[in-house]
């Protein structure tokens, strides 16, 4: 448990140092994800306790966005000035992005070899 958490934090730390040192346009934790992925690939499997810690963190991922979300309250003024273009742009662009990405992917992936049997229900 503790060693798995240490491994994850170490990957994040190296990721932060690496992206800052080279001025890369990705956040440290995303670089950390790539590092951990590389380590798993070298190791050839997911160690049981690393899997357990990761699953616990990811099962509660949505909770972790609450503090940042509450930050909306500090910007009601800024949002108010351009509220109409902002709300239309956010809703319209989010829907368009989801539709375009999903439709292109499902067409291209269907044209490829592996198709999915299961159907979603959520």
């Amino acid at each position: 448990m503790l060693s798995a958490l240490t491994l994850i934090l170490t990957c994040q730390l190296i990721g932060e140092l690496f992206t800052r040192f080279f001025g890369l346009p990705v956040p440290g934790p995303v670089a950390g994800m790539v590092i951990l992925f590389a380590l798993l690939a070298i190791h050839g499997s997911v160690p049981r306790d690393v899997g357990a810690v990761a699953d616990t963190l990811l099962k509660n991922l949505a909770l972790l966005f609450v503090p940042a979300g509450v930050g909306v309250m500090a910007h009601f003024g800024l949002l108010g000035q351009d509220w109409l273009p902002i709300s239309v742009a956010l809703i319209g662009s989010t829907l368009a992005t989801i539709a375009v990405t999903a439709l292109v992917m499902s067409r291209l992936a269907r044209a490829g070899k592996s198709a999915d049997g299961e159907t979603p229900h959520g």
Partner: protein
Amino acid sequence: MADISEVWVYLSASPLLFLTLTLAAFQAGTWLYDRSGHMPFLNPVLTAVILVVGLLTLSGTTYETYFEGAQFVHFLLGPATVALAIPLYRQFDRVRSSALALITSLLCGSLTAMGTAVGLGWLLGASRETLMSLAPKSVTAPVAMGITEQLGGLPSLTAVLVILTGILGAVLGPPLLTLIGVKDWRARGLALGTASHGIGTARALQVNELAGAFSGLAMGLNALATAILLPILWRLFF
């Protein structure tokens, strides 16, 4: 017995109160979501944010004071992002077999996100500063803020727009995907991660690990694509 205002002074100075409030609000949101039979508009993040903002406003607490307690939850976003390597590794055979389709759809989605956000905002007369802050709204917050700063917008406004985009995608995405008949878990996950970064990924992971793996990967790749493409495109059009 101590005066109630003395108790409040103690509580509002300690991280305990706002840490507990964050967890309790999210629990309440999750309870409501489960009780409603998973109605998209009762997304637990949305409910928790509304509850906390309401309580802070009523008690006259600033966001800075709240964040001193909530930062312990916020910090875990970093390790959780690193942990996305695990579903990605477990599902990597599926990722590799559709790599070309994945990259193509990601680029289409990334360009749609930037183009429609700036286009719609411009059509409705948003200020130049707002447009700059709006452009990277589908990208995970730290990268989006960096891009906005580079363009000359307001990073703090971007942070808020990024979170709102995430919540919108998590709420509207799954019903939209069902409406347009996309059943492939890979496509569903990729779309949620491209359009609404980590909050979309959290939503995708709740439903299916394959969708979660594609969503986490899309979040990382879209951050990279937008950071490279947006400054170039902006100079081309403005």
